[in-house]
């Protein structure tokens, strides 16, 4: 325990008696943040130093307010505070807890929202279908001239992508595109959830519109066949990310904690793991979309099996049934 200075004694005496200790404490405060692993003894010594330093800080504030010494003691305390209060490195057990408990919990917290957004996606797809069926010239809003030209000649663009790039590169590109979409859906949710709604509605309109356009040229089955293997997970992940974004917006509109910022912060911390799950699931669907979907030789039952199998795997994981429960 540090000796408390006698407040009646002059500050100089207190300083001179304590100065030898500060040199050692300063050395400890400087070393603690650099350490990646600490033994129990080191950790206890750091905690003791922290306690002593804060006591000395309180005394210095009393005896020498606004002094160089007080500022130096305060900074040493703040440095030790940051070094003591830090999360442990990500270990195997931490990852397991993330995959087994935190991701399913985050998914469960947005389940209802995700279902509503899935309904919005379906409704937007119907609206897109109706729009392109009624006004076919509007297809130029959702498809590039090359895609339109190809479909009008009776070729789906989806089966020509392998001629443009190798499957690995194609998968990487699809993955990065999809990740940007889900990040956009999540982050734009902060705008009171409107950004996430927009993302879902826009993607639904595009999906329905493209189906209608290919239907006009008798190619809709080809498009459905193409999306069968990767589509279920990709669309579900999009709804989940948008639901997470909407939940962020809800935290701003209806704060569950003392302030909106606090509410937003807690919700984001809870939903962060779900975003990681979404990215990992998109990695899988990107691989399927790059390697399997564009191959015309793969039959519909195989595509259906892959699509449903992957989707079931996703449901099991997010439902908390994929990994064994922790023993209590």
């Amino acid at each position, binding site marked *: 325990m540090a000796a408390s200075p006698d407040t009646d004694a002059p500050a100089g005496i207190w300083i001179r008696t304590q100065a030898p200790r500060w040199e050692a404490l300063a050395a400890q405060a*400087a070393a603690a943040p650099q350490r990646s692993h600490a033994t129990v003894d080191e950790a206890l010594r750091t905690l003791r130093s922290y306690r002593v330093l804060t006591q000395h800080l309180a005394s210095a504030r009393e005896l020498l307010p606004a002094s160089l010494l007080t500022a*130096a003691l305060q900074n040493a305390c703040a440095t030790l505070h940051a070094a003591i209060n830090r999360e442990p490195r990500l270990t195997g057990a931490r990852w397991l807890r993330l995959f087994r408990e935190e991701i399913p919990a985050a998914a469960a917290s947005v389940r209802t929202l995700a279902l509503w957004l899935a309904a919005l996606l379906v409704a937007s797809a119907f609206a897109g279908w109706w729009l392109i069926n009624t006004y076919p010239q509007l297809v130029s809003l959702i498809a590039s001239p090359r895609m339109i030209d190809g479909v009008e000649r009776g070729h789906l663009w989806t089966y020509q992508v392998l001629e443009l790039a190798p499957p690995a590169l194609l998968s990487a590109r699809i993955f990065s595109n999809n990740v940007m979409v889900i990040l956009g859906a999540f982050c734009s949710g902060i705008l009171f959830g409107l950004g996430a709604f927009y993302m879902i509605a826009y993607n639904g309109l595009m999906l329905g519109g493209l189906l209608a356009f290919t239907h006009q040229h008798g190619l809709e089955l080809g498009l459905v066949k193409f999306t069968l293997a990767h589509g279920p997970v990709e669309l579900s992940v999009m709804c989940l990310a948008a639901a997470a974004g909407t939940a962020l917006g809800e935290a701003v509109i209806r704060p569950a904690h003392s302030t909106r910022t606090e509410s937003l912060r807690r919700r984001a911390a809870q939903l962060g793991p779900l975003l990681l799950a979404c990215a990992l699931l998109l990695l899988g669907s990107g691989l399927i979309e790059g390697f399997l979907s564009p191959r015309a030789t793969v039959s519909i039952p195989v595509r259906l099996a892959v699509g449903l199998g992957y989707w079931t795997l996703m449901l099991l994981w997010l439902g908390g049934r994929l990994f064994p429960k922790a023993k209590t």
Partner: protein
Amino acid sequence: MAEEELTVSSLTGVDMRVRIAGPGTRSYAFLTDWLIRLLLALAWLLAGALLRLLPRVAADASLAHTVMVAAVILALATYFLYQPLLEVAMRGRTPGLRKAGARIATVEGATPGTGALIIRNLFRLIDALPVFYVVGLTCCMLTKQRVRLGDMVAGTVLVLDEADSVQRLGRLSAQLQRTALPAEALQLIHDLLDRWRSLEEARRTRLARELLCKFDPGFDPRRGAALSSRALQGRLEALLGGEPGH
């Protein structure tokens, strides 16, 4: 109105105050990091282009294509992952933040965890809108703790890194043990030496002479009047080192 300090409650009940970094420090750190990651990404592209010039690679079109694709992927990964990866690995610091003398902390003054650091980086998507971080900078200027949206969501704040002051405590304690000067005198001499360069020469020499007259028994005011600014500075430093009169 922005508050310039973050009050942190310690485990012992004594509050600490940490200075918050403003938009200037933030922009300086960002630009430094941006320059570094841009140079690193360009270095990958250059390496790819140079590899393509090798006779063995140049002869094989498919290999040359693969080399260039790999270089592009590495360049993009370096450019986009530089900030989140370094922030996680360096516990809330990047080379740019170090250079700007700042670090990322949680609103409780702790070192932020991996999740918080990743979330604050994800929200750059919104902060960067519509161009040149307009949303982020505006938010930074308007909020109490000078935070952008990403920081708000992650519960982090950019604070000035006072790690040098910890070493200063060590130096100060060493000086306090060596010198017979009162603490107030040490404070005054330190303050003057800290501000030495920013003060006008006439003013700093006058202050130095006054302090030396008062606290250095070996200082002769008549001889001291002839001493240069540099000599006076050296004399003050010697006084701090516990060598009055030398």
